[in-house]
């Protein structure tokens, strides 16, 4: 039997990835390169924030009524967020946004396929619901990787630059820590070892198809899962939490 505290943290990891990436994509609202893609990014943002909300509602239940869904989502400090470093990286240009999204989507899709049969009923329900949405996300980002990577000289160069910037953030997702291993053993979480092989294979094959060169001599940055973040998260939270901090208990 897994400790409630561990399930809570595991659920927060799932939730925080969705919320923080959703917030990043929402920053594109009104700034997309063309209207259709502006709408696509904000649609994906909406899906992710909806998924995050489902996880936060569950997390709030696990606090035995001590915290509400909003408390959990908005009233934590940066060290208490356990999202991957990848998802908090700034949007920069469209190429960076696409590469970040593609890395996350491939992982997210494989993760949800596993979590759909989690021993934890609530996690399984949320995963079964989310997976339909995430297959569309992956198709969207995957197609952009191909189109821009194997596009013009300029789009190719921008994608290659983005790939090199983000490569070291690509695989924190599949680097298991103690909690991941425990959750995998008790059948609640995913087995990141076997999942990691699939994720890496899919990403590297697709990047080659997109005529991009895989960066060499890289190392995988980690820390996000345990609250050790890059400087970017603090700024994101300052904006995202402004309303909840300035007007405690605000409702509308």
């Amino acid at each position: 039997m897994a400790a409630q505290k561990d399930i809570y943290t595991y659920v927060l990891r799932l939730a925080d990835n969705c919320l923080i990436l959703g917030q990043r994509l929402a920053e594109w609202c009104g700034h997309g390169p063309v209207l259709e893609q502006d709408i696509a990014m904000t649609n994906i943002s909406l899906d992710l924030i909806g998924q995050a909300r489902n996880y936060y509602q569950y997390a709030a239940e696990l606090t035995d009524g001590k915290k509400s869904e909003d408390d959990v989502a908005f009233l934590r400090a940066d060290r208490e967020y356990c999202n991957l470093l990848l998802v908090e990286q700034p949007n920069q240009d469209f190429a960076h946004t696409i590469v970040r999204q593609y890395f996350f989507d491939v992982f997210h899709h494989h993760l949800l396929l596993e979590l759909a049969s989690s021993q934890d009923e609530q996690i399984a329900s949320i995963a079964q619901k989310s997976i339909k949405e995430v297959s569309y996300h992956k198709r969207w980002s995957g197609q952009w990787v191909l189109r821009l990577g194997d596009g013009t000289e300029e789009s190719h160069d921008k994608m290659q630059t983005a790939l090199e910037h983000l490569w070291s953030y690509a695989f924190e997702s599949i680097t298991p820590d103690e909690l991941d291993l425990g959750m995998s053993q008790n059948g609640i979480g995913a087995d990141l070892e076997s999942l990691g092989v699939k994720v890496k294979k899919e990403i590297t094959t697709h990047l080659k198809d997109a005529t991009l060169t895989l960066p060499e001599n890289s190392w995988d940055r980690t820390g996000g899962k345990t609250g050790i973040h890059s400087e970017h998260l603090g700024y994101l939270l300052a904006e995202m939490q402004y309303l909840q901090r300035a007007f405690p208990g605000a409702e509308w």
Partner: protein
Amino acid sequence: MTNLKTISSDQIMDLLRTVMDPEIPVLSVVDMGVIREIEIADTIQVTITPTYSGCPAMNTIESDIKKCLSDNGFENVVIKTVLQPAWTTDWLTENGRAQLKAYGIAPPSGSTSKRALFLEDETVPCPKCNSKNTVLISEFGSTACKAHYKCKECLEPFDYFKCI
């Protein structure tokens, strides 16, 4: 006050056919497959399920259901939201599909939610001229549940209700 003892869940379901999706006002929440169960005891419990995780219409749908039943004399209404089984476009009724098409939104092609998982390319006939010569503009349209297409015959852009 209408008597809870004499009303059946089918009658409640009929009342709910007048509650429309706020984003697609020709489609009732019943035709959309959002209403999963109606239980009548001391209260009326209506179980609903969201179409998409982030569907912003859910709160409005909830209050519209309560208003509809209250207008018909039922005050004691509890709305329960469930995620499982996950909503699928297979639950759109035939009537719902016809309403969508008449409104200019292409209904989901085929059934089975496996299509969304394996992402085969879909042939989407134009809701205006029925031509199959259409092209995908964007996976994401004006709401979470729709993609954006264009007809190459009549040149109309149109929304497609994604098959999930």
